[in-house]
Every structure is written in structure tokens, then in C-alpha cells.
């Protein structure tokens, strides 16, 4: 039966959109915008369709699409989606149209939109590829538009930031390319032929312990750069700060998630034994990142850098949860990918709006904004509380699941990581106080209130922030089966056993039946 190739379309639609935008003449700026918007909205609609058609009882890959590509090397166009990638795809699909319609790059819309759409194609492809080589292609595609977006539409230090971003990621990718080729070749004996198919390798390949660890690290370095994991994180503040708002939003919301997703889907999944062996290292780096990122965020004088460093801290939680390898922690980590995407994405949008009005991101230049723009301040407050992890909003659910789930396998790290919640309040509230509280001075007293266009960009995000915080069940129901299957796979391929808490016993209370 030939199924409707919906996953292929998720990649092709934005790619074709990028091409169309590139060839449409500059003299039709409206046509350019409509085309870009159309392509991104269509992709978003497809992503939502996937969400609604997704079978939550199925823990395996759905909507799979597989075609041989380079037969002699066993490379194929193999796409599939499961609970772990589902919401990343949905987030990507939903966020791009919002960014494309809601954030104005101010110049050269045609090239900007073209790069944006190519970026979307690359990100989508990365999240649904089930072939190592194909994944690598998409993973690399992403670099190019992002490089041009930072370099072309960024701020004063954009060239340095773009180059740094590019080189950092390229170095990581070089390791991964070697790792991918080596993995495929070394797995040949177990597979009977060379293949780059993720599932086949994961199911069949038996690597010697030493080999597996080398291969694991080849992958892990590339992903650790992308996450970014301490101490490979210093490209991030520069890239985030210098990127145009749209670029920052996409970078934080989905690009970084290629790192955490990759660690899970490729690193741990392919090399469970090596991942277990390397756990203490990753626990430590994640925890150090949580504390280090938070402290560094506190001391930044540029509002955008505060948010950028907060990402280092937040992503540390996800890595911690991923390596903790309990269903609760990994599910929490997968969910936290989305939560961070929403809240940090929204924070970057808000900081971008401040920049649009004041042409500065310096905290010292801003003050008293709550008095002149209370609605704007309220929007910032809700998003900030979500980022701090206040229960009832989305950030808390994932963070709590990561911490409580990791407590069995990483007790001492969790004890320290949980202190990160204190620091999160510190750097955000302090920044908020300096920017929003107090009396506005002359330069800030004309700060414009949130307008309808801006509100319509933020409202869906805030809506999702509240909804996911109050009722995360629909999301968790879809993530959890795949996570369970993933952990079962790890258990099968190593001597690991997921620890379980004591069976809850409800002691009969007086008066109850």
C-alpha cells in the first residue's frame, strides 16, 4: 500500500518554498511574503495533522517512509516519527509560521525568508530521519541558513558570532561524520551488509565495549556542541545575542533540541553500554552547566545574553534527564525540549520587541517599563515564571519530572541541580526588576504598549505555556510509550535495569471501606 508521504512533505514543502522564494523576483515583495507564509503554514498544518493522526498506543515509528537511495552503501530515505520526535516536529511546524509572520527582519525579506524556509526543511529532516547518513545531511543543512541569518541580519558582532557558530558546529560534525561512517562499516558484520539504517544498526550491531565508547563519543561531541553542554557552550551566547530575533527564537526553540534529541536518538540508542559507562561524565557536565549557566546569566549586562545563558542551564536539565534513563526522567526531558522552546522562544520575542522600541538590549538602559507598558510587562512576567519553573505553567512539569525521575540514578547530581531553581529565580527576577520596576526615565517613558500584532504572536505561545502546565497529560501520553520502548531497548542491549520505586500501598484510612 502506498501511503501518503506526509513526512516527506514536511521536508519538501519548506524546501520547495525556499526555492520558490529564491526565484521570485524582488519586485514582488508581497508575493515573496505570501509564498513564504504559505509554505510555512502548510508545513505547520501538516505537522498538526501528524499530531492528530498520531496513534498514541503505538510506541514505534509511525508514518514511516522508506526508499533506497544509494543502494551499494545501504543509504536510504528513511523517515519516521515516534513520541520522542513528535512534539519537536509539531513545535517546529507551529513556530516557523509565527516567526515568519510575526517578526520583521527589516531588510532583504526575500533572502531572509528563503533561508528561513531552508532552515525549516533542515530541522524537520533532522527530527524525522531514521538513516544516519540522511540525518547527517539534514543536520548539516541547518548550519548554512543559520550562518547566513546570523551573519546577514544580525547585530554589530554578527560576523564573529556567525563564524564561531559555524566553526564550532562544523568541528563537532566532523567527529560525527567519522562516527557515522565507522559505525556503518563496523556494524556490517552484524547486519550482513553495509547499512546506515538507524534501527537496523541499533537492533543488530554488537560493538566491542571499547569500540562502542569511541563511536559514542564521536556522536556525543557533535551533539554536546549543539546542546550546548558545558564547557562547549560559549558559541551560544554570541550566536543568540547577535542573531536577529527570528533567528534567536528558532535557534533556542528548535536548533538546540537537535543536540538533546540527537544524544537520545543516536547517542544513547545506538550505544547504550557506552552511554551508561559515560553517565557520570554527562551528569556532571549537565549539573555544572545548570549552575554555571545560571550564575553566568545573573552577571550579564545584556538582556539577550541573560536569556542565552539561561538556555545553557535549562538544557542541562534535559541532558541530566536523558542520561538518568528512567521513564519519568527521560519523558520529562523530552517534554522539557518543548517547554524550553516555548518559554525561551517567547522570551527572545519579547526581548526583540524591547530592542525594536529602544534599540538597546542593555539592562542598564532600561527601567520602569511596567509602569508605561503593563500588558507587555504582564506577558513578560508569565513567560518568565514559566522559565523559572513555577507550577501551573509548562516549565515546572518537565523540570520536576526530570529531577524526581533522576533522583534514583543520580541522587547527588539532582541535589545540586535542584538548587538551580533558586538561581533561575535570581537571574530572571533581578533582570526583571531592573528592566520593569522603578520609575521610567525619559528614554523609557515613551515605551509603547504591546500592540495587537505582537499580542497575536505571543498569545498562542502563552496559551500553550498555560495549557501544558495545567494539563500535560495529552502530551505525556504520546511521549511515554516511545520512551518506555527506548528504555526497554537500553535494558535489552546492556545490563541496565530501570530502578522502580516501591509499589504504592494505600494504607486503609479510618472510615474508608
Amino acid at each position, binding site marked *: 500500500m502506498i501511503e501518503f508521504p506526509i513526512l*516527506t512533505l514536511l521536508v*519538501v514543502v519548506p*524546501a520547495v518554498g525556499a526555492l520558490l522564494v529564491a526565484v521570485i523576483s524582488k519586485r514582488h515583495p508581497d508575493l515573496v511574503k505570501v509564498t513564504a507564509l504559505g509554505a510555512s503554514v502548510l508545513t505547520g498544518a501538516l505537522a498538526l495533522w501528524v499530531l492528530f493522526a498520531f496513534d498514541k498506543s503505538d510506541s514505534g515509528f509511525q508514518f514511516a517512509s522508506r*526508499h533506497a537511495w544509494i543502494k551499494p552503501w545501504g543509504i536510504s*530515505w528513511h523517515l519516521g516519527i515516534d513520541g520522542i520526535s513528535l512534539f519537536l516536529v509539531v513545535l517546529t511546524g507551529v513556530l516557523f509560521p509565527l516567526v515568519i509572520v510575526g517578526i520583521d527582519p527589516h531588510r532583504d525579506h526575500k533572502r531572509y525568508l528563503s533561508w528561513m524556509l*531552508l532552515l525549516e526543511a533542515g530541522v524537520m529532516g533532522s527530527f524525522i530521519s531514521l538513516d544516519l547518513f540522511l540525518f547527517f*545531511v539534514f543536520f*548539516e543543512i541547518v*548550519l*548554512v*541558513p543559520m*550562518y547566513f541569518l546570523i551573519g546577514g541580519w544580525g547585530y554589530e558582532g554578527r560576523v564573529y558570532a*556567525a563564524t564561531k557558530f559555524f*566553526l564550532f558546529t562544523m568541528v563537532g560534525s566532523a567527529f560525527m561524520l567519522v562516527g557515522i561512517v565507522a559505525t556503518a562499516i563496523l556494524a556490517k558484520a552484524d547486519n550482513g551488509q553495509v547499512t546506515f539504517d538507524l534501527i537496523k544498526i541499533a537492533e543488530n550491531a554488537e560493538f566491542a565495549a571499547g569500540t562502542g565508547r569511541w563511536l559514542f563519543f564521536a556522536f556525543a561531541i557533535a551533539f554536546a556542541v549543539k546542546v550546548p553542554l558545558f*564547557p562547549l*557552550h*560559549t558559541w551560544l551566547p554570541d550566536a543568540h545575542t547577535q542573531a536577529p530575533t527570528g533567528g534567536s527564537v528558532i535557534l533556542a526553540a528548535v536548533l538546540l533540541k537537535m543536540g538533546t534529541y540527537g544524544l537520545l536518538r543516536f547517542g544513547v540508542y545506538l550505544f547504550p553500554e557506552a552511554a551508561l559507562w559515560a553517565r557520570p561524565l554527562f551528569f556532571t557536565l549537565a549539573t555544572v552547566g545548570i549552575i554555571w549557566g545560571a*550564575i553566568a546569566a*545573573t*552577571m550579564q549586562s545584556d538582556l539577550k545574553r541573560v536569556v542565552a545563558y539561561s538556555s545553557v542551564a535549562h538544557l542541562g536539565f534535559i541532558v541530566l534527564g536523558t542520561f538518568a534513563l*528512567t521513564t*519519568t*526522567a527521560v*519523558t*520529562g526531558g523530552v517534554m522539557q525540549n518543548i517547554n524550553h522552546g516555548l518559554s525561551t522562544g517567547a522570551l527572545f520575542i519579547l526581548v526583540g520587541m524591547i530592542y525594536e522600541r529602544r534599540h538597546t538590549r542593555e539592562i542598564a538602559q532600561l527601567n520602569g517599563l511596567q*509602569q508605561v507598558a503593563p500588558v507587555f510587562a504582564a506577558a513578560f512576567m508569565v513567560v518568565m*515564571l514559566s522559565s523559572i519553573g*513555577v*507550577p501551573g505553567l509548562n516549565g*515546572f*512539569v518537565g523540570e*520536576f*519530572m526530570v*529531577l*524526581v*525521575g533522576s*533522583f534514583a540514578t543520580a541522587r547527588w547530581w539532582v541535589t545540586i541541580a*535542584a*538548587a538551580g*531553581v*533558586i538561581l533561575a529565580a*535570581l537571574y530572571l*527576577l*533581578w533582570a526583571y*526588576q531592573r528592566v*520593569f*520596576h*522603578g520609575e521610567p526615565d525619559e528614554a523609557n517613558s515613551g515605551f509603547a504598549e504591546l500592540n495587537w500584532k505582537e499580542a497575536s504572536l505571543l498569545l498562542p505561545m502563552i496559551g500553550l505555556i498555560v495549557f501544558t502546565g495545567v*494539563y500535560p497529560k495529552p502530551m505525556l*501520553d504520546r511521549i*511515554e510509550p516511545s*520512551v518506555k520502548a527506548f528504555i526497554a531497548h537500553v535494558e535489552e542491549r546492556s545490563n541496565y535495569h530501570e530502578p522502580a*520505586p*516501591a*509499589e*504504592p*500501598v*494505600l494504607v486503609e484510612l*479510618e*472510615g474508608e471501606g
Partner: protein
Amino acid sequence: MLDLIWLIPALPLAGFLLILLFGRKLGDPGAGYVATTLVVASFAVSVGVFADLLSLEASERAGHVQRLFEWVPAGALHIDLAFLADPLSLTMCLFVTGIGALIHLYAVGYMRGDERFSKFFLYLNLFAFSMLMLVLGSNMLVTFLGWEGVGTCSYFLIAFWHERQSAATAGKKAFITNRVGDWGFMMAMFFAFWAVGSLDYAVVNGGAAGMAPTTSTAIALFCFIGACGKSAQLPLYLWLPDAMEGPTPVSALIHAATMVTAGVYLMVRINPLLDAANSYAPTVIAIVGAATALFAATVAVAQNDIKKVLAYSTVSQLGYMFLAVGSGAYVAAIFHMVTHAFFKALLFLGSGSVIHAMHHQQDMRRMGALRKLLPITAITFIVGWLAIAGVPPFAGFWSKDEILLFAYDKSPVLYAVGLVTALLTAYYMTRQVIMVFYGKAHWHDAHEQHGAAGDYVGSAAGDFTPHESPKTMLFPLVMLAGLALVGGIIQLPSWSWIPSSLAHRLENWLGPIVHGHEHELTRDAHDLSGTLALVAVGCAVVGITAAVLVYAKHKVKPIEPKILADGWGYDRAVSWVMGNPGRRAFDGVAWADAKVIDGAVDGTGALVRKAAGQVRKLQSGNVRNYAAAIGAAVVLLLLWFVVGRGIL
């Protein structure tokens, strides 16, 4: 009514949403009345549920759980958004909504004319909702939801007049200090979950006896860290005196009557764990409680800001409650929580009425002789004073007495500390009453500005005559004064002249919650209870007399050393540590991040550039070109894929 528990928090939530959507239209005072009405409705439902529980056999009153939906289901973790109706949670609901309603009403008068009037009630209703989630949650996570919610609302409300930097800073300080405690609460949940596989109180408490004592000790003490933050105990009390920056109704509702008692509630809620824990756990709690009670009382003696006295007094009284918890006197802790809510809310609202009358002057040295101009405020304030001082038959006497009795049974040292605190309490409260309501009027002698910050910037001095507050403010005062007078009736001791049907009513009511875990008084202590009560009254009389001699008769010079006024310099020391070594450490991290870690990156880059200098001639060295090449290659690859291989 039992299946309507959900309405108790839902009504204030509805108020929040209404004001969120229509706040500007409702305006001043409409929004205030909407908010008040919904809290009153919530109180009515609480009374209904209470009556329902009361009609049941005592043994059937506990453990009524109402599940709304699955909140966080993942892996072994299954957390419902569910409410628990039992004597403890209903006691909390009754006084939270009851006192909450009175304070809402008061605030309608107090906040009149504020440009953010409706926003104030928006926050106030959100607070009421969160507080009710806290006390009604059937598992630790729902309690934590409320716990963080009240903390967030407290932050909003302390910083309500956010143009003032001191208010903004105080709000932030409250939030962050509380977060330190929240870390403890989270750790407690982690331990509990892995020990019993659930965060439901029924399971956690039920499993307490079967846990390793180290586990129950860990859960109990980590919860206590959380409680220290929320209930302002040493060493985390720092935020509460600063929280007085908020409008006075907020101080009364959040920072005296309800939110700050959440820590005490939590400890009583998990009392089976405390019972199962190593014996040093309750002792630690009792010592921290007693130390805080004494410490804060000494500081209150030297404060000149009318609200600061009450703030330190609150810290001190909360210390009593933890002394009770640590002594195994859970009923006494709740008893004192309730009576304290009556008289401390009364005192705060009274002080608000004074501040209102004094055109936002808060310095007691600028007051005096107000009893004639503010007769109702003065009379009700005096009732509150007698109640907190422990004069019989006012409410505070009974509850404080019960705590001292259990403290005596736990350790004579703790008892002595409690007694000294009682003396100091009588002393500083008498001082306050004299400075505000008696003696000479000082509100005309302006000129020399004192330090106390008014509710608004630029407090007026000089040309005005203080006036009594409007009825919306006086009605709550009178109601609370009545409660502070007779509130003791809910838990009278078993003395021969008290009819046995009136004695120990709260204890019987809370029986299903604390039964078997509450400390049993030794025979010895039991027989001494009458004597101990006399000693306590003696202390109160000594404290009052001393203050009268000093402040009314001027026979003795006031003893108000600067070190007490400064809170023993503790706040300053902490600020110094945060501002100097702490700040330097943070700067150090930021420096290392920029210079060491990122420096290594830039250094490598420079090195490579130099080394590649020769090769470079062959290549453009321009990343842009590489990037474009990769981009082109990728697009071609894709094209081939799609067109050439016919994937579509």
C-alpha cells in the same frame, strides 16, 4: 456538600478570571466587591463541607478525596489534581476564606483610589485560590502548586507599588529566599516518591511507619527546610520584615494570617512522618522554633515602624507554632495558628487603619494619643494586644498556654525560652499600644524625618487631624476583635471548672489526623498545667507592667539598643556575604566563562589561523564561501533525491 470541595478553590479562581477579563470595566470599587463576594462564597461552601464532615462519625471524617484529573502521569509517577477533605484541610479552609473575606472587604476601603485598584484584587483572588490549593491538595505536588502560587502572589503584592525600588527589592528577596525553602520541599518529594512510589499524603503518611528511619527523617527535615522558607524561620526569616513594603491588607492576609502558616500546616500534615523519624528531627524543629521565637521577639522590642513590630512579632509567633510541632503538639500548633490569624490579622488591619489615618506615616514616634480620634481602631487594637500578650480570657492566652505546656514536657529549656518570649511579647506589644494610642500626640511635630518608609513615598507630616477609617475597614476590625476575644473556646483545657463538653474540642475534631502521633503528656505535666498557666499570666503581667513603666510613666529609660533595632545585624551580614564574596564568586564565574573557556576557543582559533597561514593562500579562507558551497551541494543532493529517485 462533600463533592463540592472543588468549588472552594474554584470560586476565587473564577474571581481572578473575571477581574483578568473585566477588571478595568469593574473598576474601583466594583472589582473589589466581586473579589470579596467570591471569597465569601468560597467561605460559605467551606462551611457547608465542614457541616457535612461534622455530621459524620469522627472515624469517617478523614480521607475524602476528590479527583479532578490526572495531572502528571509519567512512568511510575502518577499525580492527580485531587483535593482532600478532612478535619485539618477544612480547618484551614475555614480560616483562610473567613479571614480572607474580611481582609478583602477591608482592602476595598483601604485601596480606594489606587490607580491599580482592580489589579490588587486580581492578585488577591489568585492568592486565595493558591492558598486553598495548598491546603486542599491531596498530594505533595498539588500542595507545592499552591505553595509556589502563594509565593508568586506574595511577590506580586509585596512589589505592588513597584515604582518604589525598596518594594521591588523586597518582593524579589521574598521570592528568592522562599526558593531556598522550595528546594527543600522538592528534595522531600524526591525522597518520598522513591520510598513509597507516590506523593499522596495517604500513601506517604501511611508508609511512614514502614520506612527506614533515615528516610522518614530526610523527608521530614527537608519539608522543614521548605517550611522555614515559607514560614519565615531562622535562618530564612529575612524576607518577612521586608515584605511589609506591600500594602497593609497584604501584610495582614499573606504575611500574618495565612501564607506564612503554610509551613506549620505542612508539618502537621505529615505528622506521622515526624513521629516515625529519628527523635532528633522533632527536636531540631522545636529548637529552631524556640530560637526564632526568642530572636524575633528581642528584635521587635526596638522597632519604630508600626508594621515592623508586627512583622517581627509574626516571625516570633510562628516560632511558637514550630516549637509546638517539634514538641509533638500538633493540635496546639493549629490552635495557635488559628488564634494568631485572628489577632494578628486584627493588629495588622488596625495598624493599616492607623496608617490610613496618619496619611501613610508608619513611624510610631510620630503617633500617640490616637485613641480618642480613632476610637474603634483603638478598642479593637487593644483587644488584639491583650490577645497576643496572653491575657486571659483572650484567645492567645489559651493557645500559647497549650504550647508552653507541651514545651515544658519536652524540655525545661525550651519552656524557659518560650516563657521569656511571652514576657517580651507582652512588653513590645504594650510599648506599641502606648506609643500609638496613648501619651502625647506627635503627629504635628514634623521636621525631623525618621527612617520608616510609608506605604507611599513622601509620607505627609504636620497639618492634618487623623480621622477614623470608613465602615468597610471598621467592620472587619470589629469582627476580628470578637474572634480574638472568644477564639480560645475552640480548644479549652480540661480544668475542673470548665465543662468537659467544652474542653478539647479542636483536639477531638483533629483527632483523625493526629491520633497516635500527637505527643501524650506525662502525668507530671498534666497536673502542672494550672500552675504553668499562672506562671504564663504572671509573665504577661510583668511584661505589660515593665512597658507601662518605661513608655507611659517614663520611670525607666527605654532599652532599645541599635543592635536589636538592626535585628542583631543578621540581615546586614547576609547582605554583605551576598554582596561581597558572593558577588565576587559570581563575577569570577562570568569572568572564567568569558576569558578561560571562551578564551581557549578564541586562542585555538588564532593558533589555527596562524598555522594555516600558508595553506590559506590556496583557499579563500572565507567561511561564507564554504557555507555557500555546502548549501549548494546540499540542495543538489536533495534535488537528485526527490527528482532523480522519484520519491514523490
